[in-house]
């Protein structure tokens, strides 16, 4: 039915270490770059990228659901935060 139409949203969650949390991977990458000839690189931080599609009635409810996922599961709020990018994709949910 029309009022039940749900849309598909493409979601990208970037999981980052919170500012101030030490990042041993980032520090190691940063130390390695000059030895490969890449100078002038600073503040390297290594994170995670999680992509998926989600069905939702609208973008606001998709965002609310993804933020709940981040809080409960996709990030550890003690050391990580997330940047969420949501885009509507073509076509309704099946």
């Amino acid at each position, binding site marked *: 039915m029309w009022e039940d139409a749900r849309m598909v949203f493409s979601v990208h969650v970037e999981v980052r270490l919170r500012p101030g*949390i*030490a990042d*041993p*991977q980032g520090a*190691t990458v940063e130390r390695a770059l000059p030895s490969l000839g890449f100078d002038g690189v600073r503040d390297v931080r290594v994170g995670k990228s999680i992509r998926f599609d989600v069905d939702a009635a609208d973008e606001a409810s998709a965002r609310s659901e993804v933020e709940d996922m981040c809080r409960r*599961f*996709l990030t*550890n709020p*003690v*050391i990580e935060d997330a940047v969420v990018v949501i885009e509507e994709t073509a076509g309704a949910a099946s």
Partner: protein
Amino acid sequence: MSRRVGVVLFPGSNCEQDMLEAVRLVGGEPTVLWHGDPTVGGVDAVVVPGGFAHGDYLRPGAIARFSPVMDAVAGFVADGGPVVGICNGFQVLTEAGLLPGALQKNRGLKFLCATVGLRVETSDSALTRFAEPGAELRIPVNHFEGNYTCDADTLAALKAEDRVVLRYTDNPNGSVDDIAGICNEARNVVGLMPHPERASSELLGSADGLPLLRALVA
């Protein structure tokens, strides 16, 4: 009657057999608690052992914390039952919110497999009540994510409330304030990165884990 100690088994746990054997060695009656069962089966103490529960996918402990057995463990904790998380078990307990803070990748990005020195900081915890404050123990560590971290307020509370249970004498992994193990406010939940079950006999190189293991069975 000897005390029954439940050892939680997740897919990917790999220290549960050592723990079962160590419990037997100190006179307890060990039993396996399957991660999918929503009960701790009436045991007297629970150990969440080391390993790589659910492959450490996403983060160590991130998936394990949602196992049915963990709801039962949380209920056991609320009733005052003693719970000890070792290594991956410590990571699971922090993810589950039963202990504060988190365990980050080691400073230096090396997987550490070595016997390290530890100092007992308090005997007021479920794991250290038979250990002497100030005593130095030699116990193995075996981890990649053992670098304990927490916010400044949490650290201040841990110190003010005497909840740092064990410290490294020579910090191997970058843990804040040399922390190797902590307890919760009620002092019945302890998490530590070192493996007392691997220091249960001189034949293994150290028997310094015995005073800690005995606390589980007496």
